[in-house]
């Protein structure tokens, strides 16, 4: 608990800006959804034949898991990609259903005699809508907005996966650092925010249905106007925060966050450009798509990963061959692979230190007989990749007692140390290997291809900013596997601030 408050007080400005981004995402998406859903609901309420398929469609949209929805949107031009825009599109889609549904229900629930009274008094359909139907349906519509906004606060945490910011940043950062304090630092404000939004809208709903109000439509209109002004104002701020000249991306684990920060600081210091950090971007495929669409200008990729996961080429064991073929493949799609940074982050088959010592395990081969009694745990990627589990099992004749438990990569280190699983496939440079007393088994049959870390950047960006290229190339060969493990250890185990770790490391290079 004290650690949590310490974290908040030391990250005050960042917390404020993340809360701001979060509120902005939810407010903007909810307002836009209202602007779309209420007219849609009005339209549908009068035409039963449209209402049913409309709500059915909206229902289906809402059942798509939000992470999957972000995935679908990645390659879509204009509305897709990474960043706040795509997040808004997803959040708007989710907010539509409850509002459409309650608008229809609110209008349908009006006593037909009341509507008929309005018609008989000579109201045009516009007058009837404005003076009778909408005021009577308003409490119901606000109830829908309330549901949409509260759900939106929750969904917006996932938006951090595509670099849209918000409190999800802390949750994802905490997950990659396996640090519950950081997770809570994001989760608690998000929950409080949801409660606050719920309370405010519930109050509004009560106000509206209690009827003890005058000129409520006007009050509501001015409330909406104020909210809209706030959104415009903050989106101005947001526009500034996303308009950096160079966008640096990274995947969603500690090493990538460190490398992303390292690129960003190098560019800011040596090339004198402003940098927009889109760190923590889901996995390899999200980063690759973002780089293709131009949402990010560069990130650090691993040669073996690029060869197999990005370009779907067969696995190869020679580092030079892998590097040059990946460089050529990237060049064909307008991207440049810079020379390797100097370390090879290959998969590391890890076991507990105690097991390794008591059973004298040194290589993967040594572990094959033991594995028949073991339960393994693997990250999502390792199970799917062509250079992952299937080939490993074939190469070594590995068999386990149970099907592997598929879990978040960073959680698997803890799971191994805690005895929940007995063997994992981690990263060779992971700081937790040292921190949790894990032992890497040697890949004595050389199954895993090389995973040399190298910067991949959009060729157009490098051409436009020659200084950027020069300063990035100066990093080539400067980061050893030991350096990387130390950096990861500082972040994952010592919980030190990543920008500071990187600043110290860069200072030590000169």
């Amino acid at each position: 608990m004290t650690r949590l408050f310490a974290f908040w007080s030391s990250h005050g400005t960042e917390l404020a800006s993340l809360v701001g981004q979060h509120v902005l995402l939810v407010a903007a998406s909810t307002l836009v959804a209202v602007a779309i859903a209420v007219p849609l609901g009005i339209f549908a309420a009068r035409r039963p034949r449209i209402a049913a398929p409309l709500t059915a469609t909206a229902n289906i949209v809402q059942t798509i898991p939000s992470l999957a929805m972000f995935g679908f949107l990645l390659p879509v031009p204009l509305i897709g990609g990474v960043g706040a825009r795509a997040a808004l599109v997803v959040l708007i889609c989710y907010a539509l259903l409850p509002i459409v549904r309650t608008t229809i229900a609110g209008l349908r629930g009006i006593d037909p005699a009341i509507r008929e009274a309005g018609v008989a008094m000579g109201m045009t359909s516009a007058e009837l809508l404005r003076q009778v139907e909408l005021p009577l349906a308003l409490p119901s519509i606000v109830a829908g907005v309330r549901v949409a906004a509260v759900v939106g606060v929750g969904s917006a945490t996932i938006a951090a996966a595509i670099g849209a910011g918000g409190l999800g940043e802390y949750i994802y950062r905490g997950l990659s650092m396996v640090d519950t304090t950081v997770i809570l630092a994001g989760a608690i404000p998000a929950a409080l925010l949801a409660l606050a939004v719920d309370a405010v809208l519930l109050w509004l709903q009560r106000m509206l249905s209690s009827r003890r109000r005058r000129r409520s439509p006007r009050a509501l209109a001015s409330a909406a106007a104020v909210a809209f002004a706030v959104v415009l104002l903050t989106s101005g701020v947001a526009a500034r925060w996303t308009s950096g000249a160079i966008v640096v991306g990274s995947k969603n684990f500690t090493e990538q966050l460190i490398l992303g920060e390292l690129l960003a600081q190098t560019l800011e210091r040596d090339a004198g450009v402003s940098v927009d950090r889109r760190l923590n971007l889901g996995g390899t495929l999200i980063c690759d798509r973002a780089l293709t669409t131009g949402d990010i200008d560069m990130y650090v990729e691993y040669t073996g990963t690029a060869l197999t996961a990005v370009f779907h080429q067969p696995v190869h064991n020679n580092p030079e061959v892998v590097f040059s073929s990946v460089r050529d493949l990237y060049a064909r799609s307008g991207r440049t692979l810079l020379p390797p940074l100097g370390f090879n982050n290959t998969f590391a088959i890890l076991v507990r230190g105690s097991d390794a010592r008591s059973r004298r395990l040194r290589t993967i081969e040594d572990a094959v007989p033991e594995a028949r009694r073991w339960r393994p745990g693997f990250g999502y990627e390792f199970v799917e990749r062509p250079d992952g589990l299937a080939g490993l099992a074939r190469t070594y004749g590995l068999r386990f007692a149970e099907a592997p438990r598929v879990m978040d990569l960073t959680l698997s280190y803890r799971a191994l140390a805690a005895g929940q699983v007995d063997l994992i496939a981690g990263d060779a440079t992971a700081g937790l290997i040292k921190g949790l007393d894990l032992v890497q088994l040697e890949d004595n049959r050389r199954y895993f291809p090389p995973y040399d870390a190298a910067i991949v950047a959009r060729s157009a960006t490098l051409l436009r900013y020659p200084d950027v290229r020069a300063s990035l190339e100066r990093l080539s060969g400067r980061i050893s596997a030991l350096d990387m493990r130390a950096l990861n250890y500082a972040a994952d185990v010592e919980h030190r601030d990543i920008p500071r770790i990187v600043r110290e490391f860069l200072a030590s290079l000169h």
Partner: protein
Amino acid sequence: MPVPAIEFQQVTFTRPGGRLVLDRFALTVEPGEVVALVGRSGAGKTTVLKLVNRLLLPESGAVIVEGRDTREWEPIRLRRRVGYVLQEVGLFPHMSVAENVAVVPRLERWDDDRIAPRVRELLDLVGLAEQQFATRWPDELSGGQRQRVGVARALAIDPPVLLMDEPFGALDPLTRAELHAEFRRIQQRVRKTVIIVTHDMAEAFALGDRVGVIDEGRLVACDRPAAMAVAQDPRVRRLLDAIPTIDARLKPA
């Protein structure tokens, strides 16, 4: 000869389901006259009213309002010249009494300083003290008070025609008698052309200058109360016999 206020010329009307509601219905209402139409539930009484303000259009025949076929009337114009008092529920629940009464004047874009005195005048006309009632909500009124507001609302811009659909149906007998007297007093002052529909013959006798009986979609009789009271037509007698009288029940068997 003056133009009749409302004239039904051989009007036939069929429900979308195909059921015949009005069958060559004919009726002429003179300006300033109160016609009370009686019939059992489902006899087509409400349909008659809705044909006047063009909520419905006849299938054949014609409804003439102030000398013009309702088909030729612009519906919004027509409806604002025809006040409508509905059974029980017609008040807008989200508007105060004063706001309900002011609905049509606002639709007609009256100025606020013209609306306020008019609302006061109307509430006064229907016997509701403005100070006490103007800011109340419909659900804070008794049934009788609600009906008074309904009448005030229908009269707001002084329309020449007033349609009343079972206006006093849901009230207790004392309140109903009180409102009957009130209605006659108001009618003496405003002299509207009124069609009232009711299923209660006693009410029709109490309110109508003429009483009409609708049976199976046709107007089977229409005459002054005194003449109706001695009618021999069995369809009229049935309704007359349904009027409860005290001595009929107290008579020993």
